[in-house]
């Protein structure tokens, strides 16, 4: 019984929240890594692209709800998501045309593109806030819990509760589908292969007749799709607040760099590494240890490596350690 309680406590407070957070980070990091691999710069505007995409999706969700269209037990936002992606893709393509193409034509150094993306970030910041405001918005509807804490306790008779929100399951499932689709696209389709060729060696790709503008456009569309999906899932699971997406930028970059910039597999692994470290390092293991230890060995004080205020410091610390000892990341990406 005690062993089960320990497992349930660990599931409820560490494994389930970290898995859904990890899936959200992985999707974000995939977008960053894709842009880095193919367009060769770190896109600082990615966090705010997520905010813009989720903002649009929320507006569309409200529209659908007003029309009475829904998905029953699933959140309406999933129905609005494809349209949100289309609009976000249109915005990033316009941005590319207006800002990045100029620097690409001039073959500017990556750092100039990075600085341009910081400018784009601030503009997107403003657009999102004008569009939907700065307040916290909850837009999840449909079934809220798959397993609710009270029912679980009543059904199992355990001391510890286990709660599983439907948004957490949706997040992980959607992330798996998106990742599968992305890998299929990159490995199996002609456009995907030409993107990888472009990423490996730009000049050779050009010589073999690959149209660079098409590759760039497809990359942006994919990045917008990933950003909008990640942002909407994050907003569904937690709550939408424009500022939070700006704050997400750090863990997302940490995830992309830890995995190896430019390496899609690395981005996914990095997302989960960052998420699990953030949650596990700040979790107080007192109860879990208390259940596992025999008799009254249960500890009085907290068994916690860092207090929860230092959550963001975990991403920083991992980032610095990886950059010091393995600058190309765990999965052999490009060095920063």
């Amino acid at each position, binding site marked *: 019984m005690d062993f089960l309680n320990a497992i349930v*406590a660990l599931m*409820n*407070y*560490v494994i389930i*929240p970290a898995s859904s*957070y990890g899936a959200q980070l992985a999707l974000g990091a995939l977008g960053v890594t894709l842009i880095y691999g193919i367009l060769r710069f770190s896109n600082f505007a990615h966090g705010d692209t997520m905010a813009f995409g989720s903002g649009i999706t929320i507006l569309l969700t409200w529209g659908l709800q007003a029309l009475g269209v829904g998905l029953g037990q699933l959140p309406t936002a999933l129905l609005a998501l494809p349209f949100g992606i289309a609009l976000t893709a249109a915005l990033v393509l316009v941005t590319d045309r207006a800002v990045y193409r100029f620097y690409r034509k001039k073959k500017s150094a990556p750092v100039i593109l990075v600085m341009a993306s910081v400018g784009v970030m601030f503009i997107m910041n403003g657009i999102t806030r004008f569009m939907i405001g700065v307040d916290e918005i909850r837009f999840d509807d449909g079934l809220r*819990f798959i397993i*609710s*804490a*009270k029912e*679980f*306790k009543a059904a199992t008779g355990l001391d510890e*509760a*286990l*709660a599983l*929100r439907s948004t957490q399951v949706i997040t992980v499932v959607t992330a798996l589908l998106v990742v599968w689709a992305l890998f299929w696209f990159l490995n199996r389709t002609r456009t995907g292969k030409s993107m990888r060729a472009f990423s490996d060696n730009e000049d050779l790709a050009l010589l073999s007749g690959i149209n660079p503008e098409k590759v760039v456009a497809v990359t942006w569309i994919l990045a917008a799709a990933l950003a909008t999906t990640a942002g909407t899932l*994050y907003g569904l699971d*937690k*709550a939408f*607040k424009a*500022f*939070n997406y700006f*704050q997400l930028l750090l863990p997302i970059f940490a995830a992309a760099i830890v995995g190896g910039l430019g390496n899609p597999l690395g981005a996914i692994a990095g997302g989960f590494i960052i998420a699990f470290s*953030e*949650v596990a390092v*700040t*979790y*107080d*293991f*007192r*109860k*879990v240890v208390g259940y596992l230890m025999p008799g009254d060995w249960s500890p009085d004080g*907290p068994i*916690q490596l860092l*207090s*929860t*205020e230092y*959550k963001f410091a975990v991403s920083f610390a991992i980032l610095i350690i990886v950059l010091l000892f393995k600058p190309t990341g765990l999965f052999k990406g490009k060095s920063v």
Partner: protein
Amino acid sequence: MKKLLLASAATALIAGAASAEEIKLGVSVGFTGPLESLAGPMAAGAELAMKEVSDSGKLLGGATITPVRADSTCIDAAAATAAVERIITTDRVSGIVGGMCSGETIASLQNVAMPNGVVMISPSATSPALSTLEDNGLFFRTSPSDARQGVVMTDIIMAHGINEVAVTYTNNDYGKGLADSFQAAFEAAGGKVTVNSAHDDGKADYSAEVGALAAAGGAALVVVGYVDQGGSGIVRGAIDAGAFDTFVFPDGMVSQALEDKFGAEIDGSFGQNPASAGEGRDIYVAMATAAGYDGTSAFAAESYDAAALIMLAMAAAGSADPKVYKDKVMDVANAPGEKILPGELAKALDIIAAGGDVDYVGATAVELIGAGESSGTYREVAFKDGKMEVVGYR
């Protein structure tokens, strides 16, 4: 050019002298920020008192009182200091109702109000640190210190038969002050605080904080936070994870928004905020309803009283100069004298003009103790069937 400058300077001087019958009072509360849902009714309360005095035409020979609003933001001390500096140096206010939150109030008091010698009466800054702060006699508050709230909250929790709680507080002067004073009072009464940890406002996700609190355990969770900010996030996270069923809400959390957000999910939880029962409060709430705002909103009544105290002190001192009238604030607030209820400010001004003495009771049964803070009556509320109900007063 020189003549033009001289002429305009002279005009400005004359204009200044001519408008001496207009007294400006600042209202410095957080119109934006974590307590923005409380700020509107607070400012309306202060301005209601000012209008009452203006309309009576009895203060200092018929002076009109003009409110000047400043956004103290509640959390950003630098922004609050700049806003208060603006109303003191540009608008030349003779007194300020504000600030709203403790950290911001301390900053604007020390950096601007004290150097310029302007009286501040805060309706809602409750940190114990303000009791002992050196203030040159310029600072008062119509709300009680959180040292008192800690004791009251202890009594209420003990009365529910709970003697083991976890505490989470918003990471600022208000949160830490109240959490520490509560812990001291609760432990002195024989209770046990399993954990006393901070949370930061403005995050999307509080599952890590909730996890740490749940690990420490306790029969109830005391949420010393803000209802428009992390406080609600913690409650949401704790309910979702099934970590706590019973919550204790101090003044920053008790609001209509709590009922709207959680409804029946927080049934069985309880809390308290400074507010007193009695004739004064009933009259005030009726006046507020007539003026078109919610008089029961937290700290709105305290704001009315803060503005009223400033103006009565001016009348008693016969001057709108804060350096002069600051000494009269305690006199008009406390006995002896005729009791003054809300809506009776004109009567109070008549009594003062006739050389009499007043004891301002107002909407919150004002009684200033110590260094000029309210002795404190608290309203105990409980959540039942998705509604917030007033249980009693302590």
